[in-house]
C-alpha cells in the first residue's frame, strides 16, 4: 500500500520530520545514496536543533548550520556536494577510525528487511549466482552497521515482499535471530537498528526479543493496514500512538530551506 499524501503534507515529508526528531545535537550523520528521506531529515535536524551535528555525504564531512539553505543535491553522486566540506576523505580512510563511530548515525534501506532488522541489498532468490532479482550490492553497509552507534532502517515502500520473515541473504546484520544479546554474542560493537520507518508506520525492536514492533501508525493508517502489508506476524506496542504530524515551523523550514525543489512532494 502506498499513500501519496496525508492531508496537506506528503508521507515522505512526515517521515523526514519524524526522523529529524530522532537525531541529537552532536550526532555524526552519514547518509548514502538513494535515500531521499534521510537526506532531508539530517539537514532539517541540523537547522532545527543540531548546530554541532556533522553531515557526511560521499566522504565530504560538513557542518553547514549557518547556511541559509541546505539544498538537496540534484542526484546521489553530485560531486558538487563537496563545496560545503570542511574535510574530505575517501571511504577507505574513513574506515580506519571505526573505533570512534559510536557518535555516528547511519540510515539504510534494502530489497528485503526481516523481523529482526537484518537487511538485504544482495538480491532475492535461492541461488546467489542466478538470482531472481539481483540487488545493487552491499555498498559499505556491512561495515557501517557493524560499528555505528545506532542506525535507522528507512523504506520507500511497505509490502509483504519487502518486510519478510527471513531475508534470502543478509548484507547488514541487525539483530540476527533476535534476543537482546544478539550482537554481543558475535562481538558486533555498534548499537544496531533502532527504528524502521516506512510510508505506513514506525516500528521499534522489543527490548528482550528484538522483534520488530509497531509503535506508531501514520495519520489515516490502521493497525490492520500495517499488519496486512507486513510479511511476518507483527507485534503491537501497548503504547501505540499516531505519528505526530509536522509542526508549521518544521514544514516551513523543510520546504523553504531544505527541499525547495520539492523532491519529497513529487
Amino acid at each position, binding site marked *: 500500500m502506498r499513500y501519496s499524501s496525508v492531508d496537506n503534507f506528503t508521507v515522505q515529508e512526515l517521515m523526514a520530520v519524524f526522523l529529524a526528531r530522532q537525531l541529537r545535537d552532536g550526532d555524526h550523520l552519514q547518509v548514502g*545514496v*538513494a535515500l531521499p528521506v534521510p537526506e532531508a531529515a539530517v539537514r532539517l535536524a541540523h537547522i532545527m536543533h543540531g548546530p554541532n551535528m556533522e553531515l557526511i555525504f560521499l*566522504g565530504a564531512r560538513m557542518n553547514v548550520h549557518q547556511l541559509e539553505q541546505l539544498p538537496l543535491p540534484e*542526484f*546521489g*553522486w*553530485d*560531486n*558538487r556536494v*563537496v*563545496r560545503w566540506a570542511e574535510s*574530505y*576523505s*575517501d*571511504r*577507505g580512510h574513513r*574506515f580506519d577510525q*571505526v573505533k570512534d563511530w559510536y557518535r555516528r548515525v547511519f540510515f539504510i534501506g534494502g530489497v528485503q528487511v526481516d523481523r529482526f532488522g537484518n537487511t538485504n541489498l*544482495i*538480491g532475492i532468490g535461492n541461488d*546467489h*549466482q*542466478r*538470482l*531472481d*532479482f*539481483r*540487488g*545493487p*550490492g*552491499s*555498498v*559499505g*553497509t*556491512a*561495515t*557501517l*552497521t*557493524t*560499528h555505528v552507534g545506532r542506525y535507522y532502517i528507512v523504506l520507500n515502500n511497505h509490502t509483504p515482499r519487502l518486510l519478510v520473515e527471513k*531475508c534470502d*541473504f*543478509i*548484507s*547488514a*546484520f541487525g539483530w*540476527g535471530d533476535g534476543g537482546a544479546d544478539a*550482537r554481543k554474542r*558475535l*562481538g*558486533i*560493537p555498534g548499537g544496531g537498528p533502532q527504528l524502521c520507518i516506512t510510508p505506513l508506520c514506525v516500528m521499534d525492536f522489543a527490548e528482550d526479543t528484538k522483534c520488530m514492533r509497531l509503535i506508531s501508525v501514520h495519520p489515516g493508517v490502521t493497525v490492520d493496514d500495517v499488519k496486512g502489508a507486513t510479511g511476518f506476524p507483527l507485534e503491537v506496542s501497548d503504547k501505540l500512538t499516531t505519528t505526530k504530524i509536522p509542526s508549521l515551523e518544521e514544514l516551513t523550514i523543510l520546504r523553504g530551506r531544505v527541499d525547495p525543489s520539492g523532491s519529497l512532494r513529487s
Partner: protein
Amino acid sequence: MERQSVLSTEDEVGNWIENGMTIAIGEPAPMGMVRHIIRNQISGLTVIGSGIALDFLIAGGCVSKVISYYAGGGFGVPVAPSFRHAAQTGELEVWECEEGVLTSGLEATAKGLPFLPWRGGVGTSLPEVNKDLRVMEDPINGEILLAVPAIHVDVALLHASKADVFGNVQHQGGPGWIDLFLRRAANRVAVQVEKIISNEEVRSDAWATTISNADAVIRAPYGAHPFYSRGHYTQDKKHLKLYVDAATLAVTGEQAYIEEYFRRHVYEATSHIMYLEEIGITRLLSLHEY
C-alpha cells in the same frame, strides 16, 4: 641519461591489458580507457568497479567476473541494467563483497599479506555466498572476524585532475573513492588526467601529490565523461540516461539501441579525441561545476 617520461597513449596502456586479467576501475571513472577496452574486444576480465561505469564493460562483453560491492543504477533504474541481467542469468560470476571487505583485501595485497581480518560482514551472508571469505577466530582474543584474502590487481585504471610526465598525480578535491587502495594493490597503474602540468608545478605543492610513480599518465581532457571529474565537470545526466535506457532495452531483447550507442561512441569514435568530437563542444562545456 635523462629521466624517463611516462606520458602514454590509450593504445600503449591498452596493450597492457590481456584477456582474463583482473583490472580495477577507479572513480572518477577512466572512461577513455573503458571505451578503449570495449573497442578492442578484450574479454574474460575480472573487474573491480562500481555502478554504470562497470555496466559499460559488461554491456561491451568484456567481463566474466565482477568484484562487486555496489552496482546501483540511477537514472530511473535501481540496479545497473547489464550487471543485473548478467548476474541473474549466471553469465557473470559475482565475487560478493562490501566496501570495508574490499579495501581489506586490497590492503592485504599492498602489504604483502595473505589476508587481513575485518569485522564488517560478521553475521551476514557474505562468507556463505563468497567462499573466499572465511570466518575466523582471532588468535589474540578469540573474537569472530572475517579473513579477507589478498585481492590481486593486474592493472588499475584511474582518472585524476593533473599529473606531470613523471607520474606524479594530483587530485583536485581529493582522490576519489578507493583509488589509492587500488593503486597500492595494483601491479601497474595508469592514470588519465585532465591536464599535464610541469614538474615545477608539482614541486610547488608536493603535499597535493596523491599518487607518485604512476606507470603511465594519459592526457585525457573530459576523460571521465559521461561521469564527473571533481573540480572540472559534473555528470552528463542526459548522456547517462541515453546509455541506461539503451542498456535496459538490450536486456529485454531489444538490441538496436545499445548497438547504435556503442557504434557511435565506441567503435566509430576510435580515439578519445574523436569521442569528444562526437559528444560535441556545446554539451561538454555545459557540464561546468558552478
